[in-house]
C-alpha cells in the first residue's frame, strides 16, 4: 500500500515542504518541490540520507587554537557520530591552507575532510 511521507527539502535554503508518495521503499512521486533538486533530495532522503558535517580540530601553534573543517560532500547520516569521532582524533600544526585535506577518505566513505579556512601560525 502506498504511503505519504512529508519532508522539508534541505538541498537549498528555500526549504520546500515535500510530500513523497512511497510504496515498498520506492518513491512513486514527489510534490511540493520547486526544482529538480527536490526530486533528488526525496530519493536520497528515503534511501540514503546524507548530511554535510562541519566541526573543528585542534591546531598547534595556530593563530587560533582550533581549525574549522568540513566534509567535501555529504556523508551518510547514520555515520555522523563516528565521523565526528574520527575527526576529533586529528591534530594539526599551523600553518594550514584552506581546502587542505586534513583527513582522507573518512571511514572509507570516499569523502575527504577539508580545512574550512587557512590558519596562519601564531605571530
Amino acid at each position, binding site marked *: 500500500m502506498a504511503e505519504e511521507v512529508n519532508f522539508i527539502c534541505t538541498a537549498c535554503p528555500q526549504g520546500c515542504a515535500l510530500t513523497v508518495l512511497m510504496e515498498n521503499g520506492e518513491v512513486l512521486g514527489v510534490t511540493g518541490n520547486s526544482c529538480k533538486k527536490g526530486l533528488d533530495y526525496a530519493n536520497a532522503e528515503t534511501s540514503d540520507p546524507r*548530511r554535510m558535517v562541519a566541526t573543528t580540530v585542534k591546531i598547534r601553534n595556530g593563530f587560533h587554537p582550533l581549525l574549522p573543517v568540513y566534509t567535501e560532500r555529504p556523508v551518510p547520516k547514520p555515520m555522523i557520530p563516528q565521523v565526528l569521532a574520527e575527526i576529533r582524533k586529528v591534530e594539526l600544526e599551523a600553518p594550514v591552507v584552506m*581546502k587542505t585535506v586534513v583527513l582522507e577518505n573518512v571511514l572509507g566513505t570516499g569523502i575527504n575532510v577539508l580545512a574550512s579556512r587557512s590558519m596562519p601560525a601564531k605571530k
Partner: protein
Amino acid sequence: MLAKQIYDVVIVGSGPGGVAAAIEAKKAGADDVLIIERDTELGGILLQCIHNGFGLELLKEDLPGPGYAQHFIEEMLSLHVEVLLNTMVMDITPQRHLFLSSKEHGYVEIEARSIVLAMGCRERTRAQIRIPGYRPNGIYTAGTAQRWVNVEGYMPGKEVVILGSGDIGMIMARRLTFEGAHVERVLEIQSYLSGLSRNLVQCLQDYDIPLQLNHTIKRILGKNRVEAIEAVQVDEKWNFVPGTEEIIPCDTLLLSVGLIPENELSRKAGVKLDPITSGPYVDETFQTNVPGIFAAGNVVHVYDLVDWVSEAGFSAGKSAAKYAIALRNAEARYTPLVAGKNVRYVVPHKLDKSTLEAEDVRLQMRVTRPIEQPVWVEVHDGENLITRKAERYVRPGEMVTVVLKTKNYADVAKASKLTIDINPR
C-alpha cells in the same frame, strides 16, 4: 602608520558586506580604498559560523562560513585594498571625517570622499525580551557561545536550553551536541519557526532536540550560575497559560531571539534610521540620507542569506566609488591660489581652470608690508613663472591686482597650485 590622510572610499567592517564593497569599489575605479576591522583578522562573524550552506547562490558551492569569507578576502587583497585590523571607528562626522582608535596606530582622524557602513548587526539580549529573575552567569547570546566554542575553544555549558528558534540558535544546538553538551530543548514564543526550515531538519530533528512552539521562559533560577529555567506555554497574545509551567534544570541558557542592525556610528554621522528595520533609509544605490555615506548588508536590514549581503556590498561599493570619483574630479578642477612672499591673502582662494579657458581672471591681494621700490608681482606654479606684473611700489593700504590671461591656460592647467610672490625688481 596609515598610508593616507584622505581616502576615496573607507569601509567600516570587514564582514561579507564590507569586503564585497571594497572589491567593487576598487573595480569601479576608486584609488585609495581602506577597510577597517575591529577584530584581529578580516571576515567578521562568518569566521565563527563554521557550518556549511554559504555561497550556493553566488559561488554555486556549499562552503562553510570561514571559507566563504576567505574566498572574497583573497580577491579583495589582490586588488590592493588597504587594511586596518584591531581598529575601532569611534566617530564619523557628516563631513565624512572618521576617528579611529587602535593600539598599533593610535588615535587618528582621517577623511573619506565616500564611506560604506558595514557594521553588521548585534544580537538581541535578555533584557530586550525582559525575562525577570536573577542575573546569574550562564546566560549568553547564541553568537557569544558560538565564538567561545568555535574560535576560542571553550565550552560555556553542559546542559543547555535555547530560547528562540533563530538560525544561530538552532545551529548552536547541533554544534554543542557535536561537542558533547546536551541540548535539552529549544523554546519559541511564536507559533512558527523564526529561522530557516532546513535548519529545523538538519540541526534539531536529526539530533532529536525538541522544539516547543508557543513557549517562553517565565523566570531564571540560580544566583551565581543558572540552575534551571521555568518554561511556560503562551497564548496567541503571549500571555502565560496557567498550569503549563515546567522547571527545566540546566546550567546554560542561550538566547537566539533576533538580530538588530548596529547603527550607533550611523547616528553619529547624522544618518536617519528606519524604525522598522532599525537600519538607515537608503536609495537604490544604498546611499543614506547623508551624501557620500552608503550602507550595506545587515547594517541596513537583517538578511537570511550571506550571498545577498555580498550582493548588497557590491552595489554599495560601486556607488561609493562613483561618488568618490566624481568628488575627486570636482576637486581636481580647482587650483588653489596661495599667498606667497610678502602677500597676506589672495582672492579668489581657488580657481576653476575651465573658467580660464574662456575668459581672463583677475586676482586681487594685499601685501604684508610696504615695499617702497619697484617690484614684480609673480604668479608661478612652484617651478615655472606663469605671468608677472611690474609695480613701482606696494603698500598694505593699496590693493594689488594681477590678471591671469586665457593664454596662460595651458600652464595653469598643469599646475597643482598657484603661488603669488612679490619680489623687489
